[in-house]
Structures are given as structure tokens and as C-alpha cells.
């Protein structure tokens, strides 16, 4: 190939294009746009959460109508499995909305906070003078999860096992106090032709919740913090034993068939139509339980029990798993007078409105009297009030990669495709 002028020009152009692209890419990223102001009160939530958008719309039409006139409410949703990707993309383009759901892994929120995208509510609410509107228990849960008061508790949930009282009574089963009691109960139910447990293998986390509950009961409330700090590993025998205990439940077929394909809605329905006897879920399930169309077994037949104790374990039944659901964080770059005014209105009114409209227990103070609180909701409120020590959940302190690995491999663990050691090895490798 002779070095004609044409070849040289072409070659030079290619080199210039390549270098400039290289330089472009090296300089990109890390710089978020600041100083922009919001022209709408934009909110991004996960599509599975129907309540936050509903209550926000009620507020926009009612208590916060003045703020809504200045800054109209704009709601956007994304599937929870896409949430982390969506947040990363929008953060990189400096296009995050005013309020957005925190990522599936709290580590993502920490990363966003380090890059300056997340508002510090201690400061923002302190400036507005409404810091006392948030329940202290909720604040402490948020701080332990997110390394600071970086999210708002639109939900405050406790988790445990909802069970069908009618099925239990029909089979002569009392509320299990220990894990062995629960296994015996499951065996009785299975023999009677009832599916003992309902869990969504497609989501994965309902199964890993069982693993972490067993860990906390067996090894104490700080067991997962030790893993996060490096003092213990998930591949240690006592942690593997927890995974094995849950895998054994699956080996007996007590989660029903095809658990890996069961999505959240199907799993909820299995409990609500009486096909399954026990369902591990948080108190955010109250909206489904209190809805007469969805709840076909009747409110009076629904019982709630904390995850049972493990004999000889360091934890006990009173230590409920508590969380703030998938909370919302605020875009630090869009905090201005209009958005702060909206925020103040939300903080002051969300608690009572959510309780009345959606039967949702949140971490906001109740500023209005709410009449006719349903029986199950007040039962949950009582559990919350009685709980002194709370525990987190399996993926609470994991990285995004470990969270995905854990949730995706939960179903293979209970169907027997993956052994307990292999499961813990995979998750530990990604921590």
C-alpha cells in the first residue's frame, strides 16, 4: 500500500478521531450538573410501589395544592429490577428527579451521596425546622443502613410470618414458637395437602429474608454486621447452616412447584386465596390484607408471628426485622425554596394521609387524628411500639453485585440446583 496523500489524510483523521474519543471518555463522568432548578416536582419510584404515587397525588390535590400549583407533581415509575441501572444512567446525565427511590442496594445511595447527588435530611429538615416530624426509630434504621440521614421513611415496616389462622385451626397447629415447631407444622400442612409456604423465587429476596432471619435468631442481631465488617464470612459453618435450613424446606417441596417463576403478585395471591398457609412478608402487605377484594380469606383469619426462635440461638423472637422499605431520597442539586416547601408539606401530612388512605404505617409523625384504623394495622403499630431491638436483612449491607447474586440464586437454592455451600460461596465472593 503506497503512502499516498489520501492514505495519510485518512490515517490522520482516524488517529484524531480515536484520540479525541479517548480523551472525551477519559474526561467524562464524575461531573454532575449543579445549579439547575426544578420546573416540576418530579418523583421516580419503583412500579411495584403503588402507594407513594397515590398518596402524593392525594396531597397534591389536597393539603399541598398550593405547592402543586407552583411546582406541579410529575410521577415516573420503573420496575424495581431496573431501578439501579436507571439511577446510574440518570445520575451520570445529571438528570435525576427531585425525589427518587433509593437503589436496591444501600451501597448505591452511598455512592450517589459521595458524588453529591443526595441531600442530607439532617440539614434540610433542620433548616426547615421539622426534624422532629420523623420517628426516631426510623431515623436510626436509616442511619445504620445509609450511613447518614439520607432517605425519608415513607414506610416503616416490620417483617414476620403472616399465617392463615383458619388453616392452622383446621389442622390443629398452634403458633410455632421455635423453628423446629414451624418445620413440624409445615410437615403436617403438607400431609394435609396445603402448601406450607409461599415465596416469590423470581424476586429472590423473600427467600433470602428467611435465611437472614435464621441467622439473626441463631447467631444474634449483629451477625450480618460482622460479615460486613469482615469479622465473619458467609462461608463459615454456622452461616452455611442457616442456608441449609432453608434449602431443606425447599427440598421437601414446601414452597410449591416452580418457585423460581413465581412473581410477587402470584405469591401474595397464593396466601390471600388460601392456597398457602404461611407467607413471610413485611407490614407493607397491610394494604393487600385490608383490601376486601384481594383478601379472600378474611381479615379475621390472618395472623402475624415473628420469625420463630432457633433453639440454643443467641437471638430471640422479640427482635423483629424492621426496615424502611425502599425509601425516597432527594436530589441535593434541586433543593430550593419551591422544592423545600413541597418537602415540608409532604413531611407534615404524609403520615396521617398514608395511614388513612393506604393503611400504611410510615416513619412520619401523625399530625391528624385517623379514625377507624383497621385491626391488622393497629396490631402492627403495637408490634412496632413493643420492639426494642430490630434487625436488618440479608442484603442490607451488601454491594450491588452481591445483592444481585444473592437474589438471583435464592430460587436455585430452594429447588436444589445449588447447595447451601455453593450459594454462600457465590455471595461471599461478590461482597
Amino acid at each position, binding site marked *: 500500500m503506497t503512502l499516498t496523500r489520501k492514505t495519510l489524510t485518512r490515517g490522520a483523521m482516524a488517529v484524531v478521531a480515536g484520540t479525541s*474519543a479517548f480523551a472525551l471518555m477519559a474526561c467524562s463522568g464524575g461531573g454532575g450538573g449543579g445549579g439547575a432548578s426544578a420546573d416540576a416536582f418530579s418523583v421516580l419510584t419503583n412500579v411495584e410501589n403503588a402507594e407513594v404515587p397515590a398518596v402524593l397525588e392525594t396531597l397534591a390535590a389536597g393539603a399541598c395544592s398550593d405547592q402543586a400549583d407552583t411546582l406541579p407533581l410529575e410521577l415516573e415509575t420503573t420496575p424495581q429490577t431496573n431501578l439501579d*441501572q436507571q439511577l446510574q444512567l440518570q445520575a451520570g446525565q445529571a438528570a435525576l428527579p427531585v425525589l427518587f427511590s433509593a437503589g436496591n442496594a444501600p451501597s448505591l445511595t452511598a455512592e450517589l451521596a459521595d*458524588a453529591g447527588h443526595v441531600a442530607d435530611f439532617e440539614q434540610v429538615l433542620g433548616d426547615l425546622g421539622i426534624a422532629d416530624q420523623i420517628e426516631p426509630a426510623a431515623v436510626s434504621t436509616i442511619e445504620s443502613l445509609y450511613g447518614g440521614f439520607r432517605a425519608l421513611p415513607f414506610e416503616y415496616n416490620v417483617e414476620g410470618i403472616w399465617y392463615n389462622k383458619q388453616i392452622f385451626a383446621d389442622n390443629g397447629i398452634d403458633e410455632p414458637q421455635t423453628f423446629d415447631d414451624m418445620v413440624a407444622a409445615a410437615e403436617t400442612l403438607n400431609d394435609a395437602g396445603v402448601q406450607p409456604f409461599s415465596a416469590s423465587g423470581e424476586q429472590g429476596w423473600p427467600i433470602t429474608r428467611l435465611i437472614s432471619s435464621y441467622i439473626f435468631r441463631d447467631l444474634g442481631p449483629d451477625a450480618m454486621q460482622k460479615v460486613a465488617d469482615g469479622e465473619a464470612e458467609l462461608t463459615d459453618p454456622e452461616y452455611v447452616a442457616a442456608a441449609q435450613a432453608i434449602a431443606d424446606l425447599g427440598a421437601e417441596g414446601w414452597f410449591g412447584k416452580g418457585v423460581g417463576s413465581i412473581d410477587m403478585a402470584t405469591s401474595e395471591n397464593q396466601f390471600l386465596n388460601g392456597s398457602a398457609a404461611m407467607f413471610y412478608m413485611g407490614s407493607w402487605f397491610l394494604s393487600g390484607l385490608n383490601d376486601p377484594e384481594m383478601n379472600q380469606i378474611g381479615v379475621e383469619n390472618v395472623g402475624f408471628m415473628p420469625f420463630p426462635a432457633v433453639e440454643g440461638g443467641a437471638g430471640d423472637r422479640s427482635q423483629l426485622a424492621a426496615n424502611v422499605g425502599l425509601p425516597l431520597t432527594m436530589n441535593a442539586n434541586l433543593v430550593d425554596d419551591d422544592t423545600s416547601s413541597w418537602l415540608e408539606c409532604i413531611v407534615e401530612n404524609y403520615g396521617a394521609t398514608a395511614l388513612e388512605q393506604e393503611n400504611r404505617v410510615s416513619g412520619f409523625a401523625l399530625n391528624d387524628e385517623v379514625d377507624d384504623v383497621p385491626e391488622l394495622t393497629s396490631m402492627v403499630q403495637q408490634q412496632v411500639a413493643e420492639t426494642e431491638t430490630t434487625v436488618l436483612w440479608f442484603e442490607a449491607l451488601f454491594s450491588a453485585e452481591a445483592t444481585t447474586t444473592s437474589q438471583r440464586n435464592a430460587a436455585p437454592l430452594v429447588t436444589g440446583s445449588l447447595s447451601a455451600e455453593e450459594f454462600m460461596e457465590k455471595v461471599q465472593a461478590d461482597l
Partner: protein
Amino acid sequence: MKNILGDRRAAFVLLAPALAVYSVIMLVPVVVSLGYTVFEGNAISGFEFVGIDNFVRLIGDARAHQALLFTLKYALVVTIGQVVVGYMLSLLYVFGLKRASSVVRTLVFFPIVMPTVAVALLFQQLFSIAPTEGVVNSMLAGFGGVPVDWFGDGGSAFVVIAIMDIWRSMGFYGVLLYAGLVDIPEDVLESARLDGASGWRLVRHIVLPLSLPVLISSIIFSINGTLKVFDSVMALTSGGPGTSTSPLTISVFDHAFTYGEYGYGSTLAMLLTIICLIVTIFIFRGSRRDLTKDGPR
């Protein structure tokens, strides 16, 4: 016309807008992605130079090897399936149905027009076991078999993916190869029949060699597409259970956008690009030899 297209400057001016759009949208991101392979980071926390760390990690990463093996396995199985079934269909159209083939051709072609996600949802329901048994499991139970949890295991999930993609594309390859088959001159077939060739021998000795060029093109087309599969697998199993049905494309997506590791994701993407290049060169070399053999007749 020849004056305009013969003039190089005019040709360049006419091409320039499309070339510019193509460069910006296709070429620049490819170059940038190649650049990312020596960095690590993401859009939120910025990038840092890591040299060849990503490549060292790729060599030792068992999950990346598993994804690569799955990609190759999928490409091989689905390509063979699509082309063979498509070829059978085209033989059926030419020799079996003849005139009536146009209706059948259209109906069998139809699935490729449907969105991949819609087809995936359809197959999810067809092969489901919970909460209700799908058609396949009902039939199995009806014939006295045991219903299978198709999506609970990587192997059976792969079978469903393969069936879905072959069903979807067989009509397309049928039509493509049919076009190649009708090009075979009728008198060649007549003289072969007069010589006593019929049925399978006719196909093997006359039809197959004469339709070889279009067959090779179909194989290349198919391999290129199947190596880069993403949406049908993502919509059907999301790469699950675990990562047992994750091809390289889903692995790239996970690493880049879920874990925030753009550098490693780009490295995996580069691996896939190299595989595609190797396969394409390999096939072109092979086909060139064949074409020159059949050249002067």
C-alpha cells in the same frame, strides 16, 4: 446518472449525512467502549485508569467463561436449528406445496414480525408450571407424564429458549432459502429427474450444491445474529436461574449497568466483538473456496 455517481465528490456529498450519523451513533461509541477497557468506574463516580487489570480479571473469571460457553452453545444450536428447519420448509414450499405455498409461507413467517418480548411472554405462559400449568405441562400430564419446571434449571430453560427462537425465525429462513431454491433452473431439475434422481438423492446431489451460496449466507446471517442475542433471553429468563442462561450480552449489561463496572463490561463486549469477527472471517474464508469451485460451469 452515471455521471453523477461516477463523480467521487458528488458521491461523497450524498453519502456524508448518513456517514456522519453512522459514525456518531455507531463508530464513536465503539471506539469509546474500546477505550473504556483500560479504565474502571461508572458515570456516577468517574473513571480511573487501571491498565490491563480488566483483561487479567477476564482470563480468571469463571462466570465470564460460562457466559462465553453459553453464547457459543446458543449460537451453534439455534443456527443449526434455524437453518436446517428453514431449509426443510423451503424444500416443502418448492417441491411439496408449490402453488399453495404462499399462504403457508406467510403464516409461518409471521412470528418474526412479533416483538421478541411478546413472544417471550407467550412462551413463559406456554411452559409455566405455577400458578397454573401451561399448555406443555398440561399435555405432558395428559399423556401420563410428570409436569416439568422448565425455568427452574438452566438446561431445560435453554431448551425453551432454543425452541422459542427457532420457532420464531424458521419462517424467515424458510422464505430466504426459498428465494434461493426457486433460482435453480427447472431444466436442470428435469434432466436430473430423467436420469433417475428423485427425492432425497435429488436434494443431496442437485439442489443442495446449487443452493449452497444462499445457504452459506443464511448461516453467516444467523450466526451473527445469534452470537449477539439479548432481548429474547432477557425477556424469557433474565439470564436465570442464577446466571445459567446468561450469554455474554447479558453479562455485559449486568456488569456495566447493574454493578456499575463500565470498564469490565466493555472488556466483555470486546471479547464478544472478537468472537464475532473470528467466526465471520472463518466462514467467509470457507465460502470463498466453495464459490470459486462452482464458478465456471
